[in-house]
């Protein structure tokens, strides 16, 4: 009975933490993280005049792999439109070795990532955003308020069958100084393997 009681209490402990709410400011904008070459970046540093796009991704997740090329394209497009872009590897490579720096380098090269791709060592940023899965994206407007949270589009499996280009349209809206519609979307994805040790 005691084990069952403890397990019931644990049910509430494993419920997901809430993500940053729409309208909220950029969390931990000055938090510094290293890329695969050791160069350090913060979200605040990459912010653009029109807005900021923060993407929680990783290497191994099949959903990310399906969207990788689109993430590269959207990142380049956002930067060209005056929106700063940063991708964050949210997974602890001790838990998923594929998510280490070598995998990140291949991912960058293969998909033409032309934006900083940093390692959230300690999961500090991931926890501050309340991100739960990869990929999961957060788009902030020129004033630094969250205006879009969710996924890339409505069909990870086949780009030819995408009906709703959520992130592409949200980027276009923010670049034009408008509110995205919809502002929140979801998709299946890999749960984030947080760092469990000290930061």
């Amino acid at each position, binding site marked *: 009975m005691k084990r069952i009681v403890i397990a*019931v209490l644990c*049910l509430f402990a494993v419920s*997901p933490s809430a993500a940053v709410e729409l309208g909220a400011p950029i969390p931990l904008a000055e938090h510094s993280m290293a890329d695969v070459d050791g160069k350090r970046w913060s979200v605040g540093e990459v912010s653009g005049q029109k807005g900021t796009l923060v993407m929680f991704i990783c290497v191994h997740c099949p959903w990310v792999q399906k969207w990788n090329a689109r993430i590269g394209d959207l990142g380049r497009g956002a930067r060209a439109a005056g929106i700063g872009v940063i991708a964050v590897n949210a997974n602890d490579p001790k838990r998923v070795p594929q998510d280490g720096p070598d995998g990140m380098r291949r991912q960058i090269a293969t998909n033409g990532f032309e934006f900083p791709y940093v390692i959230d060592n300690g999961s500090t940023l991931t926890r501050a955003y309340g991100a739960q*899965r990869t990929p999961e994206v957060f788009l902030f407007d020129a004033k630094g308020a969250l205006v879009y949270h969710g*996924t890339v589009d*409505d069909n990870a499996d086949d780009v030819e069958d995408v009906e709703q280009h959520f992130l592409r349209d949200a980027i276009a809206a923010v670049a034009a100084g408008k509110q995205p519609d919809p502002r929140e979307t979801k998709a*299946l*994805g*890999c749960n984030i393997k947080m760092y469990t040790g000290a930061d």
Partner: protein
Amino acid sequence: MRRGFIALMLSAIAACSHVATPDPAPTAAIAGEDPELRLVGGRELRAELASADVDVVLLNVWATWCVTCREEFPDLLRLRRDYRDRGVAVEFLSGDFPSHSADVSAFLRELEVDFPTYLKAGKDMELIEALHPEWSGALPATFVFARGGAVVQWWEGAASYETFAAAVEAALARKRSTP
């Protein structure tokens, strides 16, 4: 003390309850897959689970590429065996892409699964909203339904046998306390 604890838990799970509007529609089996894989969308699945003639349904959403999903799968099979005579059904929905159905079947055969399971069809958003609007979409995810289809508990992330059993016991206790 025990009665008070159960009452507290029942209040908590009642607060978590969520009922989606069912939209009955047949599921389709993928030809040639053994064990049987039924392609299903979110609303169809809710309708099927709501019509199940059992007191509790535990649905686990998993995928072959999800390490923690694979790790907890044997505990769920054990749960299914342990509770099958107590009015509890344990169901599985794979979030793998339909083009990967052979991988799903291979994993199920490896674990000697000999009953039909589901494979996601349709849009992710529809599935997520149908199962629980607060679910982020991360896998694994587990949902516990009362007879009739109301969600009485759910969580995302991996769990132990004890956690699964506790959720089922809480749902059964809730059913017993309902006139």
